[in-house]
């Protein structure tokens, strides 16, 4: 989230699209309702009439996978009716930039952008025109036919309400109502927010869904203001933190890039990674890149290696190779791994095309599964269709502590890092994850010290100063505060900066003071300022707040540098410095400095510094040449869809996706426009369960409320298939099948797609074959009254991902539904 949960109340129009906050982030609804009490409008766009829809002023249905068509129509509406904030667009976005005249839009190039070569774009035409001085040419009047603004207009001129309606199935009058309502937030002093979740990310056009909305938020001046922003409602208590800490192949902590094979030295890596700009007034914050990587290398290897030597110990990715989730399980299925950790995760149910995931684990020599309950992953070898006698995989299942049995911090969707305390001991030998990790590291290090091995220094030189040590230098008790301090970072020598002396061994007050000469460490520069000489900022509990916008600056801590609304430099007029919204100012100029939230990238009023300082040129990218699939979002059909052509262009699906079904394994199947699988299916969640249900299925209070896998369908479809409410049914895709209870409701309605009746069904994904009925009972146990039943929705989902993120397309695929036993 660029903003945060409490901030939603300052919105004038809340668009929930690709999310269902009433069910999935229930407490967020407190702030949606507060906004509504103050007169805000709630607009909900969803294939299904959800709990959020039931409270919305305006609900519009759309077919899964057609969000770009819907939003492209909104961009056209905003431009056609002059509803954008012209000053904001001119000063704060790249709308005036002139693009290479050789660049072609899909409307004039058979549905693809210029430069497509097979499944990859040659992006040479996706560039800006530059003057002799290297500065990007601009047209401040936004009239030049090659300027970004005019290209935007041209791109979305094709997205007429009538055509959009044929693609999305949303009636034209509903489309126009949504457009009109949301576009009204472009007025000065008004704010609109977007609340999205997996409904937008889990598509083969996932990133472009969000790009489309980012363009709208920029046009309407909704970035940086209270009640605005682009807000991803993330699904796990610490998925923001685990992303910040780079449990992902392509990044190091703080969104630094993972080293590549083609970058042999730290110097090469820094040169390649540090962006440059020719815009004279742009701050280009990433120019500090060298300070963050050098401090990170110091946090990894301390004084045991110079930063250059430490870089030399890091693993490097093969250039151009993808190591993400789908690639990982594809490689596992092909037998490329001997060992596997599934730490606090249940891929047997959460991985797309779960049959492939489950089979892949049978190809391993050993795996470690760490969790608080038994799971379909740890026990995969005795699951449905598995013959344990034929599965060689050794499995270690380690019990870990629950959140209230250990101490540490987590970061919520609004970037708040909050501290948790230990309330109670863990049962039996269950151990905090951190202690298991530390013990394993120390044991592996011992083995390398004793026996040696390839590049053993990478392990033996790693610093591990996380608590008191025994005679052999092993940590005996893990001190999470020591880790939190290493993350914040230390001065490793006495250092004078701007006339202030920082003593060796003291904590660095903020990332602005990190150095690239090896004199500072920081395990994650974004969190530098979270644990300083003033103490543990995440543990703060003051409710003091002097702002009118509920930022509670002394409650916990928010990255970066306790800033609660990022990009807030864009909340003021570029010339006068006056807030667009005088009632809810995020920052205010008092004549000498900014007050309010921690200001973001903004200089004195009228100084002309563009506020999006993490972008090299300082402005929001309406034209975004960095992505794999185009500088503007373009509608393509999902990999599996019910219609045999893209109504917008001759290009049917996203041309840049990595097709596992073409030349892939026997499990990588696709069935599009296939009469055997005529219905669109989407996965979703219920309030009572979480993710694969691994935690919640074991809690009887929750299991009782939502005991079983179900499939929700319209009354029309039920009639067509002879299915009654409550009937046992089987949902099938080309990849698998799952039993479910039919829920026949008016919440789904058939879509009219270009004159064709298209049905959509929905299934939750919280179930799995391991149930509480399988646990061991002792004589004094009271048997749980309810067991959950059903298996994972992901048995049906396709093995395909977005070309930028490789997030699987779990929200749009094709199925059939029949009464159980009928085929």
């Amino acid at each position, binding site marked *: 989230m660029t903003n945060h949960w409490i901030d939603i109340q300052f919105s004038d129009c809340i668009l929930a699209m690709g999310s269902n906050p009433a069910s999935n982030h229930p*407490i*967020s609804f407190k702030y949606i309702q507060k906004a509504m009490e103050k007169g805000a409008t709630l607009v909900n766009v969803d294939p299904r009439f959800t709990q959020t829809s039931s409270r919305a002023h305006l609900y519009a249905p759309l077919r899964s996978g057609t969000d770009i068509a819907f939003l492209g129509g909104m961009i056209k509406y905003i431009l056609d009716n002059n509803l954008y904030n012209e000053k904001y667009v001119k000063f704060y976005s790249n709308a005036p930039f002139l693009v290479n005249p050789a660049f072609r839009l899909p409307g004039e190039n058979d549905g693809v952008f210029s430069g497509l070569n097979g499944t990859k774009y040659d992006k040479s035409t996706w560039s800006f025109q530059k003057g002799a001085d290297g500065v990007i040419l601009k047209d401040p009047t936004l009239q030049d036919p090659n300027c970004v603004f005019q290209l935007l207009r041209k791109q979305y001129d094709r997205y007429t309400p009538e055509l959009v309606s044929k693609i999305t199935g949303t009636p034209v009058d509903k489309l126009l109502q949504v457009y009109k309502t949301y576009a009204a937030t472009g007025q000065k002093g008004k704010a609109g927010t977007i609340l999205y979740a997996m409904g937008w990310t889990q598509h083969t056009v996932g990133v472009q869904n969000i790009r489309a909305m980012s363009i709208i938020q920029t046009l309407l001046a909704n970035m940086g203001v209270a009640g605005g922003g682009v807000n991803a409602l993330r*699904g796990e*208590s*610490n998925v923001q*933190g*685990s992303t910040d*800490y*780079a449990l992902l192949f392509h990044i190091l*902590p703080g969104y630094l890039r993972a080293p590549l*094979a083609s970058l*042999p030295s730290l110097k090469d890596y820094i040169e390649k990674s540090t962006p440059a700009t020719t815009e004279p007034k742009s701050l280009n914050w990433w120019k500090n890149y060298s300070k963050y990587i050098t401090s990170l290398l110091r946090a990894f290897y301390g004084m045991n290696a110079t930063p250059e030597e430490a870089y030399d110990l890091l*693993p490097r990715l*093969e250039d151009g190779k993808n*190591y993400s989730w789908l690639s990982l399980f594809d*490689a*596992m299925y092909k037998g*490329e791994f*001997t*060992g*596997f*950790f599934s730490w606090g*995760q249940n891929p047997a149910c959460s991985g797309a095309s779960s049959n492939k995931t489950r089979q892949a684990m049978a190809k391993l*020599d*050993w795996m470690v599964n*760490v969790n*608080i309950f038994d799971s379909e992953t740890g026990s995969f070898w005795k699951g449905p269709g598995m013959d344990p*006698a*034929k*599965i*060689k995989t*050794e*499995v*270690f*299942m*380690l019990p870990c502590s629950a*959140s209230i049995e250990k101490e540490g*911090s987590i970061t*919520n969707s609004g970037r*708040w890092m909050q501290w948790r*305390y230990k309330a*109670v*001991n863990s049962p039996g*030998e269950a151990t*905090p994850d951190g202690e298991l990790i530390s013990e394993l590291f120390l*044991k*592996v290090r011992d*083995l*390398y010290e004793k*026996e040696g*091995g390839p590049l053993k220094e990478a392990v033996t030189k*790693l610093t591990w100063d996380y608590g008191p040590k025994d005679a052999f230098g092993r940590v005996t008790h893990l001190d999470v505060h020591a880790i939190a301090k290493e993350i914040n970072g230390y001065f490793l020598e006495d250092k004078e900066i701007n006339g202030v002396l920082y003593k060796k061994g003291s904590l660095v007050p903020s990332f602005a003071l990190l150095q690239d000469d090896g004199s500072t460490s920081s*395990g*994650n520069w974004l969190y530098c300022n979270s644990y300083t000489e003033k103490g543990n900022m995440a543990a703060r*509990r003051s*409710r003091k707040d002097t702002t009118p916008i509920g930022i509670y600056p002394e409650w916990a801590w928010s990255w970066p540098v306790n800033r609660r609304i990022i990009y807030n430099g864009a909340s003021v007029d570029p010339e006068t410095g006056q807030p667009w919204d005088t009632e809810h100012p995020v920052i205010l100029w008092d004549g000498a400095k900014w007050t309010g939230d921690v200001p973001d990238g903004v200089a004195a009023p009228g100084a002309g510094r563009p506020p999006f300082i993490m972008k090299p040129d300082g402005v929001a990218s309406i034209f975004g040449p960095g992505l794999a699939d185009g500088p503007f979002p373009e509608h393509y059909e999902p990999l599996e869809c019910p219609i045999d052509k893209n109504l917008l262009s001759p290009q049917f699906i996203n041309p840049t996706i990595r097709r596992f079904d073409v030349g892939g394994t026997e499990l990588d199947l696709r069935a599009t426009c296939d009469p055997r699988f005529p219905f669109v299916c989407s996965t979703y969640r219920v309030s009572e*369960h979480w*993710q694969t249900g691994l935690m919640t299925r074991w809690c009887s*209070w*929750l299991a009782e409320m939502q005991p079983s896998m179900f499939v929700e369908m319209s009354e029309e479809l039920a009639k067509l298939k002879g299915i009654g409410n409550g009937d046992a049914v089987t949902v099938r895709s080309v990849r698998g099948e799952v039993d479910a209870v039919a829920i026949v409701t008016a919440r789904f309605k058939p879509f009219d797609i270009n004159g064709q009746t298209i049905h959509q069904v929905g299934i939750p994904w919280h179930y799995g074959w391991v149930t509480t009925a399988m646990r061991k009972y002792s004589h004094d146990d009271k048997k749980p009254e309810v067991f959950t039943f059903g298996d994972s929705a992901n048995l049906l989902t396709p093995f395909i991902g977005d070309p930028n993120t490789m997030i699987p397309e779990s929200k749009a695929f094709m199925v059939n539904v029949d009464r159980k036993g009928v085929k």
Partner: protein
Amino acid sequence: MEVTRRGFLKVSGAALVSGGLGVSLKPVAAHAQPLKIQYAKETTTICPYCSVGCGIIVSTRGGKVVNTEGDPDHPISQGSLCSKGGSIYQLSVNKGRLDKPLYRAPYATEWKEVSLEWALDEIARRIKDSRDKSFTEFNEKGQKVNRTNGIASIGSAAMDNEECYIYQKFLRSLGLVYIEHQARI
């Protein structure tokens, strides 16, 4: 006396009804049983489920969780919790919790209980063997890559920040590049 969940619901339902009628409960009824959090120690925590980050107070007595409820001081949740957050008591007081390391040998049909020390020793041995066998210092082009190609890791957004940090530090020191987790799906 232990208040069961259903009993508790009945009591609060009754209180709601009398409140609605403007009739106060008799003092004798209010004092009929001690509060379940009497003499309990309160610890604050943040909900482990979705990412709103609601505050929860955990009450413990004698080393056992006796109650969990919304933290009224928390500026986001202000005491509210959803059905999941309201049930975290059951994550602690739960007979289904794994409390012993389990080991499944190749081709075995059953789990075997093992000690944590044994399990960690065995895992460390396998990590070293897999790493040593698959470690690639240079790729086909002769570029340095320092990669352990034979081990993959997923997880976890369910861990604390400090745990995520040392986990990736550990994995990267081993040379893993297949490092992924929930954020990708």
